[in-house]
């Protein structure tokens, strides 16, 4: 008797959300909104437990595809916005590097927060379908959208070259904090991949 009851009650608990496109769309929307808020560093509406549950239920009901592309698109557009803000940011040289590194840190923090929210997708849907994991997705977006994009690439190379020249002039200890900038850039590039670091750190010496 009780087993029978359990069957009818439980069987369609999951189908409510599965069959209902509004719920699916709502959940997707909540996650993409969260991506936006995280990049804007506005955490008031980002409730981890709730968002995780939404992402989880999407993947569980075989809507991983939609969630993945929604997250990917949202991250891409946020990174584009960051590029825009960088393009207008200050003159070249130190202030540019400082701005770039600050934005990079914001980006990595955001990616890790997003990864936590869609962790269930990252652990199940992503390996099963051979997609790029969220962390690598974030690195890739930054690499191709920011560091390698035409305007920023040139300014970065130029700024690093100037910075190095200044260091040599002043002696490394001359300007406090300026050594950190180059080190920070190197660290960022290494994280993007050994070849990226190579590509940038070799370029100035070859040209000069």
């Amino acid at each position, binding site marked *: 008797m*009780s*087993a*029978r009851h*359990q*069957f009818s009650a*439980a*069987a369609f608990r*999951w*189908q409510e959300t599965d069959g209902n496109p509004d719920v699916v769309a709502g959940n997707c929307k909540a996650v993409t909104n969260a991506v936006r808020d995280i990049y804007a560093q506005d955490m008031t509406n980002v409730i*981890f*437990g709730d968002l*995780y*549950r939404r992402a*989880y239920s999407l993947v*569980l*009901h075989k809507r991983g595809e939609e969630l993945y592309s929604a997250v990917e698109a949202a991250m891409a557009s946020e990174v584009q916005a960051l590029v825009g803000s960088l393009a207008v940011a200050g003159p070249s040289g130190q202030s540019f590097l400082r701005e770039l590194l600050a934005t990079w840190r914001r980006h990595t923090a955001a990616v*890790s*927060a997003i990864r*936590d929210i869609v*962790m*269930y997708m990252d*652990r*199940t849907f992503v390996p*099963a*379908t051979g997609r790029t994991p969220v*962390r690598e997705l974030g690195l890739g977006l930054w690499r191709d959208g920011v560091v390698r994009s035409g305007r920023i690439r040139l300014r970065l190379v130029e700024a690093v070259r100037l910075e190095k020249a200044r260091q040599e002039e002043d002696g490394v200890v001359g300007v406090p904090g300026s050594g950190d900038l180059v080190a920070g850039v190197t660290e960022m590039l290494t994280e993007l991949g050994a070849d990226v670091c190579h590509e940038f750190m070799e370029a100035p010496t070859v040209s000069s």
Partner: protein
Amino acid sequence: MEIDLDPEDLHPTVPLRKVPGGDIFEAARAGDCARLALLLEAGANVNARDRWDSVPLYYACLAGHADAARMLLQAGAVCAERTFDGDRCHYAALNLDLRRLLKSFEARPPPLAPLPAALRAAFLACPANRAAFLDMMLQGSATAEAAALAEAAGFGPTDAASAARLVPPDITFYVGGKPIEAHRVILCARSPFFEKKFKTDWKDRKEVRFSEKKLSFTALYNLIHFFYADRLEAPVDDMEGLSIICKVCKCEELHRLVDKEIVHHRFAPYKATRKLDLMESQTRFVLQGQSLPPEDRLPSALQRVLHSCLANSRQEDYCNSVPNEMRRNSYDADRADLIVKVDERVFRCHQVILASRSEYFKARISRSVGFLEGNNESLDLPCLEAHDMSVEAFEKMLEYMYTDKVEHMDPILAEELFDVASRYLLFPLKRVVADLLLPNLVHVSPAELCHWLMLSDIYGVMKIREYCLDIIACNFETFAHTREFRALLLTLPPPSATDALRTTHPSAPGATGNSEQGNVLDDLREKWLEAEAAELDKRDQSAAQFDKRLELLMFVAEREADDDDHTG
């Protein structure tokens, strides 16, 4: 003798055959890694022997499937050359690369159970412990070997992501200036000495410095490592120090075993028949938790902790009248540092356990550090809320997290526990629940079996899914007459491939119509063909017949659904 093969030689020139219905032996022989992973995940015994007295690893080696062999070895297949099974594997290995693979796994101890493995990772995630671990490994062996061991221990050279996200240790010991980081709850659970000390002298200490000359850093480190991993690994020349420290820590059984080993080693030179044996066997001493009596093992120790936590959690609702002072004393005893609120019920538990067992809780705890204000009366512990979950299911989940097992589960909880296991990324829990549920499925009606098929497909519980598919395939006509089965057909995605791809060469290499597995109806057809179909060239006709039957049933189901709409 060294022949280096091109890496390309290792890849088969013909695509590997899939054996969707095969057992672990067939999967190993065919090199079907997906199937093998599924069987291992479902708890197949990796060292089982078939009726030819052969183990799966033997078939993988014989047929030259390096990936399958590696998978079996990682799951703990025996491969030491001096064992019966290991010797056969070595002898049968298709090429030298396989032999090298076998050799490289020879010295590795078998994999740990999920609980000790998770706690060991938590221990080694503390930077000081990790540095000490790598240091000791380097001393003991060549660099390449150390790197392999480090990899086996679960971390590569760079692992920034996990290092940034550790459960902060709450006590640091210094022996001769070298630090060991640890968590009080684990130490107290395993040793009466630590329990007493943390109640008295060390109550509010963050660090403890030892200056006794007799105390060896290696010995204390290895003992604390044992507290987490339930496996003692120590260099043989440090055994005396270990014995002393076991005695001080009042780990009596362990002390006895270590002393026995010391005696053994004292006389070993006289017993060994060959010098070589001696050299090989005498550098490291490894003691598995299973050698201890059950009450001294890690799961029982943590079970006691869990009991006191649950007892305190109960007090929370029923005995609010207990004087605060008394409550505080019993709270100190369970050393809880996290509160989880489920439906008005408050559970006291431990960050180190929850975070090391479940990546979800790890993220949740570290994300909530910002706003850990005690909104929960006078309790100054961080508090989480778990929604969508019953108190009973949460209690069962805690039981699993602390002890690696679940006893006496009400089958009504099974569905919820599958959900919990998926949601909180506690995948091994699914298997435990599946094993408990399986005996209950013997007597259920066809309608309920359909329900379980659907659930196990959603939550990816392969053992239950296989079981249901087997029953349905063998009693297909019964199910065809069940309305719930026909309704289920409508909710499932249609079978994937066309006739031509599916069945023309069901077992020929490359006949993989759909690379992503998981279509229920495809798997059902496969099972049905296995059970009912005619042999060889007649098989296609049988398959076509089965497809017709499915189509017809779906048609009936649609009409029934329409009727329902009209009447309802």
